[in-house]
């Protein structure tokens, strides 16, 4: 899609990150995987420091460390040497090779280079446990970290999943959600007694416990054999309303193996979670387990209790498109009025997705802006007089300027502790978000009060 004309030439304070970063995050959710960036070493360093400051976990990303000479003559030799060194050091289960602006601009054919590597060094690969090699094209000049994330998951499925024996398992592609979200999804699937492969799974790899011995490669992640077996899944679920029309792992399975695909919105709030649970009910052939029914019931109870603090509050929501869509669905349910839904992403689908999740709840649809930065958001939002901001840490300066509370969700959160443990999804996530939003409102009111009531 050609971008619609933007009001400004420069992107000022971007509301998106770059494509290879998303790919690295996705690869990190595969068991024993080492993300590998084919390009200048600065890319790996910058992305590592950013991912690490959010998750507060180690994150190794290898690089082919190209210099000027390689930019001229091609990066193949460095890529191959880099792969060998990574294998020797980690004995990885998978190496996820993502390209960068540099190697895309010079036109390195990475799939071909990987093929050559496999052909020329079979003994090296074998000696180090025959890791899977997955490559994905992620030039940062086309798309955001979310396109990179989905492309990496799709590439892993396309390059690894084989036409195997059909099995009873299902596939779940949650998109970019937090380790806490992933853990919770796995808990739900287990409670439904569904055999499921969640891809990627960063619940342990990017939120690891303290261990007696440091692990060079963290435990956890989606097992590689499980990815290979995805071709035999009896169904797939994929979150992300704005994914429609884009290539994705769910579509790869559907197109290649005719796996039935349940494309759902990111299950944030009551209705989007209900939709997810009905699919789980259908796939498991059983009703929602009682503990989840209870969580749902408590959530509705809290919606009622919290409503008086929230009704009509004007909110600005920003971040990744599918996260924004889910959050907006939830906010509309609890009585908050989203006045601006903004994203640096540019799928062309955000407005429609927002309309779909809010149309029976909001008297008028919120303003939706794709492909914007925080400078645009500030301009748009000023006149809307927002009372609350919901999004990542990068919106803090706006919250400060306007004197309104900010609820930190998504990525990156680098000015608060525990950002990666933020729960967004399902009934439990909605409960936690609701509590945080109500309390932020109460706190703001209390702080602003000349009396300072402690009984509110």
């Amino acid at each position, binding site marked *: 899609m050609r*971008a619609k004309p933007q009001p*400004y*030439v*420069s*992107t*000022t*304070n*971007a509301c*998106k*990150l*770059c*494509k*290879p*970063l998303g790919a690295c995050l996705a690869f990190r959710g595969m068991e024993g995987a080492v993300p590998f960036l084919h*390009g*200048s*070493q*600065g*890319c790996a*360093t*910058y*992305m590592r*420091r*950013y991912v*690490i*400051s959010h998750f*507060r*976990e*180690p994150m190794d990303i*290898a*690089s082919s*460390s190209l*210099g*000027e*000479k*390689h*930019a001229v003559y091609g990066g193949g030799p*460095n*890529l191959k*040497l*880099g*792969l*060998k*060194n990574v294998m*020797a*050091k980690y004995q990885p289960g998978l190496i996820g090779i993502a390209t*960068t*602006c*540099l190697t895309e*601009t*010079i036109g390195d054919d990475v799939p071909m280079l990987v093929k050559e590597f496999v052909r020329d060094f079979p003994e090296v690969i074998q000696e180090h446990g025959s890791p899977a090699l997955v490559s994905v094209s992620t*030039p*940062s*000049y*086309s798309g955001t970290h979310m396109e990179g994330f989905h492309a990496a998951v799709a590439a892993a499925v396309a390059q690894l999943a084989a036409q195997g024996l059909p099995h009873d398992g299902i596939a779940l592609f949650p998109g970019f959600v937090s380790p806490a979200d992933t853990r919770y999804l796995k808990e739900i699937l287990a409670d439904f007694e569904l055999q499921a492969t969640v891809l990627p799974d960063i619940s342990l790899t990017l939120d690891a416990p*303290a261990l*007696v011995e*440091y692990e*060079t490669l963290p435990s956890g992640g989606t097992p590689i054999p499980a990815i290979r077996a995805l071709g035999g899944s009896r169904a797939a679920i994929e979150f992300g309303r704005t994914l429609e029309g884009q290539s994705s792992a769910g579509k790869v399975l559907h197109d290649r193996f005719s796996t039935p695909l349940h494309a759902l919105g990111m299950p944030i709030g009551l209705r989007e979670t209900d939709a997810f649970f009905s699919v789980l009910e259908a796939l498991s052939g059983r009703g929602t387990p009682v503990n989840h029914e209870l969580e749902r019931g408590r959530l509705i109870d809290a919606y009622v209790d919290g409503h008086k603090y929230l009704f009509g509050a004007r909110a600005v929501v920003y971040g990744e498109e599918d996260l924004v869509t889910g959050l907006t669905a939830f906010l509309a349910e609890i009585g908050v009025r989203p006045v601006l839904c903004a994203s640096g992403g540019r799928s062309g689908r955000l407005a429609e997705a927002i309309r779909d999740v809010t149309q029976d709840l909001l008297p008028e649809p919120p303003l939706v802006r794709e492909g914007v930065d925080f400078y645009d958001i500030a301009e748009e939002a000023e006149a809307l007089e927002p009372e609350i901001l919901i999004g990542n840490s990068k919106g803090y*300066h706006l919250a400060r300027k306007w004197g309104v509370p900010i609820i930190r969700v998504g990525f990156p959160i680098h000015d608060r502790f525990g950002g990666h443990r933020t729960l967004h999804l399902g009934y439990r996530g909605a409960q936690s978000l609701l509590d945080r939003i109500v309390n932020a409102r109460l706190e703001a009111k209390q702080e602003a009060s000349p009396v300072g009531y402690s009984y509110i």
Partner: protein
Amino acid sequence: MKVVSKETISPEVEPIDPAAVKQELLRKVPTKVARKRAKQIVINSLAENQDVPEIGANTRTIPGIITQRGCTYAGCKGVVLGPTRDIVNITHGPIGCGFYSWLTRRNQTRAQEPAGENFMTYCFSTDMQEEDIVFGGEKKLRAAIQEAYDLFKPKAISVFSTCPVGLIGDDVHSVTREMKEQLGINVFAFSCEGYKGVSQSAGHHIANNGLFTHIVGLDDTVQEGKYKINLLGEYNIGGDAFEIDRILKDCGITLVATFSGNSSYDQFANSHTADLNTIMCHRSINYVAEMMETKFGIPWIKINFIGAEASAKTLRKIANYFEDPELIERVEEVIAREMPEVIKVRDEIRARCQGKLAMLFVGGSRAHHYQELFAEIGMKTISAGYEFAHRDDYEGRHVLPNLKVDADSRNIEELEVHPDPERYRPRKSAEDLARMQENGFRFKDYDGMMREMAAGTLVIDDISQYETERLLEIYKPAIFCAGIKEKFAVQKSGIPMKQLHSYDSGGPYAGFKGAINFYREIDRMVNSQIWTYLKAPWQENPELAAKYACD
């Protein structure tokens, strides 16, 4: 359970042989790689003439090794130009590079009221898209510069090139030249594509060249002040520059410009009116000092405000340079006033930290400077290394004539500088310089890190993640210092980790008050009970404990 520290180690076990450690670090890598790394892992020793062994440095990182290093763009935009508040910095490229360098270094600044501009909270990027890569990005860059001017009316706009820019051949310099003419403000560009050098060091050099070419010397106004200096290679992380400012003011020394902590465009423009350049981080900024000496006649000296003793030494050195008894006396007064509190805190903390081991792998000067602070509280540096320094930063500047110029260094332009026909003014006559040197005053000199480290310590250039893990296992230091990328891997190994890039959330650590802050911080970290919750493998296997060859 007790945290492993020097005290828990039984003296009768065999010493750790650094040569064996070196072998262990190289064991797992292919032969060719091992051969290259062997040159960068050196067991320190001091010859009678103070010579230290040669170390491999400033060479390309091996592909597939997880390095601490960043890129040329990071060194230029992120490090050197990043801390200046009133220049609009536009990253010309796709979005990632700009985003990742958006106020991530904890540089602090104080905008001058009332009209104080501070663009540091902004991140401007041309956010190049596919069509810009195919058809060229010059048009978009020109429009972005115009837009920045229209919106902010800044004094200056600078442009930073990322990888694709050089590859597609955008001529950023001709665009900025045109725009400079058109807008009537200073507009200039840096060809700091990420792939250019072996590390961010190349970016520092490019930034130095740009500052010198485009800003230094534009404003000849001579400020009031008897003792006017510039502070070079100080980036005001965690407020370091504020503490240094305080001390200099107390001494009556006028700071004309800082490159580039808490700096402004006007300071750079006027910096050639100072009478002395003092260098903190030799690696990132010595180029500007050299060029200012050649063009304007300003001598430079190496100084260090990290460490209380080092700060006192630095002040005395500056005072001695001016050879003015009044200043010498004033400096002594300030030191005498500041030191009692430092000594009180230091002695108290030294009792708890004495003999513990530290490792420092950071930067191009910090791994050296912070050893002083650790030494002040009795801690030993058992191993250290830089991310991006050159041999002179390790071995001392006397190796400069012998440095091999490789293809990567040749990539970075060496500016040809001549004395300014009107403004060249030697601050000291040739006779004065000779006399002072005779008396032991050292101009333009830096001994490097290794001479100040004990024999038997390991000096490791561009340490990898793998080597870090092995070192921690073998030496079990009481603290490890590096950056955010290393922080959690180290902490998961049960070892306190101090960030010396961003200072975690702490600082300042420079000057006298900074030293006190640092002692307290390290005391908190190495003596914290929190580590008792983590068991490390060697704590369960006491036979792994050992003593060190440098003891």
